[in-house]
């Protein structure tokens, strides 16, 4: 006698309990604290904040703990929480030119006002596993550099280039009302602000691969890193009742300005073009990849042929979000019995017809044109 599968509710509850147990791991090992994750897994926390579109290191660390370290799952928790938050308004655009920089490098000039600041980077480490780290221990303190004569002045390299007209001005839509892709459905063609939002919260791996593809010839843009800067900027907000801006606090950001091959027309002399990347925290890989893809997505605006995936905004914007991608891929594990039954019925019928035709000695399938 067949008994229909019942008890979904009890199974779900038990699965959740088992999940919590697995998250905790061996109880003989001390439990991770949220503060430990926030302080010692800081780049992971930064990534969750960037793709979660929410600046809150404690919440991102907690999400990582709850998600057993799965980045996409942690991003999901942060995004779902973000949905429930009220919105008071938009901040004043942050002034990255006034950033208190931890790190600032340019690949286009050997030196410039403010100088090159190496900062905390893996770039010149030798990737040798440090077995000493397996034991606890405090690192040697880093020496503080003497501030140079122009340390306070750290203009963006793109501004320096822009003054001489060698780099295009910020595109004219800057200053126009900025759309919010979490509050409106994306309408194609999407403007640059919306594209940048999508890239900023897009999956790091996907954006990285797309940026990489442009370097290998799928929509080449001849990029130079004008500048990468990491540090904190002040966030300011203008409350309606005050009419002037008040500081809300500082957020750490990474900004990348790519300087790309020139463009010119009858009216405009040749000049370099921009690609822009900006993410929360220290996220250079993501900011650089974003800047490459941003520039590629400007292909049609700059009169270039659109052919490569990274130049195709419907392709990029529709597929860069890790939550959308993981949801739709993983939903295949949900039951599809009734649709599969429909396919089974058809395949069985086609096979029966095929066998009958064979038995009659006909060609199995007649061409439609016959």
């Amino acid at each position, binding site marked *: 006698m*067949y008994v*229909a599968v019942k008890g979904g*509710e009890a199974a779900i509850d038990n699965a959740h309990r088992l999940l919590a147990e697995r998250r905790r791991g061996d109880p003989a090992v001390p439990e991770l604290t949220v503060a430990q994750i926030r302080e010692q897994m800081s780049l992971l926390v930064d990534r969750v904040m960037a793709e979660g579109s929410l600046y809150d290191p404690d919440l991102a660390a907690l999400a990582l703990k709850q998600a057993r370290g799965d980045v996409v799952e942690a991003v*999901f928790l942060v995004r779902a929480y973000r*949905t429930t938050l009220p919105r008071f308004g938009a901040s004043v655009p942050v002034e990255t030119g006034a950033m208190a920089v931890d790190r600032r490098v340019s690949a286009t000039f050997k030196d410039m006002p403010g100088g090159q600041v190496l900062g905390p980077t893996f770039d010149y480490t030798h990737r040798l596993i440090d077995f000493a780290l397996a034991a606890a221990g405090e690192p040697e303190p880093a020496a503080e550099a003497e501030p140079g004569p122009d340390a306070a002045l750290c203009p963006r390299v793109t501004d320096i280039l822009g003054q001489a007209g060698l780099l295009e001005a910020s595109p004219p839509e800057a200053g126009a009302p900025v759309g919010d892709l979490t509050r409106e459905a994306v309408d194609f063609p999407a403007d640059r602000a919306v594209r940048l939002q999508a890239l900023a919260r897009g999956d790091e791996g996907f954006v990285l691969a797309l940026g990489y593809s442009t370097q290998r010839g799928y929509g080449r843009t001849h990029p130079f890193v004008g500048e990468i800067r990491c540090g904190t900027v002040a966030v300011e907000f203008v409350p309606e009742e005050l009419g002037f801006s008040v500081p809300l606090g500082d957020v750490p950001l990474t900004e990348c300005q790519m300087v790309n091959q020139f463009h010119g027309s009858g009216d405009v002399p040749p000049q370099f073009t921009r690609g822009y990347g900006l993410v929360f925290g220290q996220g250079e890989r993501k900011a650089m990849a974003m800047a490459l893809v941003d520039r590629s997505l400007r292909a049609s605006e700059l009169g270039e042929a659109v052919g490569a995936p990274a130049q195709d905004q419907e392709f990029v914007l529709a597929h860069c979000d890790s939550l959308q991608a993981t949801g739709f*891929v993983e939903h295949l594990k949900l039951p599809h019995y*009734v649709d599969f039954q429909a396919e089974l*019925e058809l395949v069985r019928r*086609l096979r029966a017809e095929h066998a009958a035709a064979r038995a009659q000695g006909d060609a199995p*399938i007649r061409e439609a044109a016959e």
Partner: protein
Amino acid sequence: MSAASALPETGYNFAYLDEGTKRMIRRAILKAVAVPGYQVPFAAREMPMPYGWGTGGVQVTAAILGASDVLKVIDQGADDTTNAVSIRRFFGRTAGVATTTRTCEASVIQTRHRIPETPLTEDQILVYQVPIPEPLRFLEPRETETRQLHALGEYGLMHVKLYEDIARHGHIATTYAYPVEVAGRYVMDPSPTPKFDNPKMDDCPALQLFGAGREKRIYAVPPYTRVRSLDFEDHPFRVQSFDRPCALCGAADVYLDEVVLDDAGGRMFVCSDTDHCEARRAAGHAGEQAA
């Protein structure tokens, strides 16, 4: 029917979404009802369940649910599939509404992949979870193009696809998500229901709402609207048929699930609509394997 939950989840608005979001969704629904079969963009929110699990349907349900509603949720026709259980529980907790597994008791029915066998009434709303709302998507991947094709009523691509099926297989090889024309105008994806269910959409007394969260679209079929499955004069639309009745309740005119009983080819066929099957058995109908 289980009574309204006494202790709904605290800290969240009724049915989870804030009132501003619900108003935005209701506006999209009104527009969808006014233009049957047209896909209305809406600002879908990130919900606490994954995309692909029914976030569009959940948002539509959240926007239309009132305190006195009675909610039924099915997946594959069944009330006890894990995702149906999970969504029903979500609304039990966040809205505190009464829930039921009986089609005839429900005022709102959220579904994935099936339309109940019991005919719906004017007092009911059927909410479909939709993965890909665009019926032309697999023929033309670009949204800018497909919107234009809909605007022009240019559905030749779809007819060519169906014709190619016939040329290649001798039959239209689309067995679910079978395209329909709504009110003589828009071609619409009925969501991945088996085409068996398509005739139930036609002239249906209940309002039918479709929500696609990931793709951010809502569309609708108002009550008593003509819904025609696309076909050809010499290849008329036909639904699936089963060569045996339900093994439990003996129903012959319903959609069946095939259940594998052993590894020696043993199979049985039972109603996909669990409520319909239970109601028939309670009324004394019995199939060949009924206890």
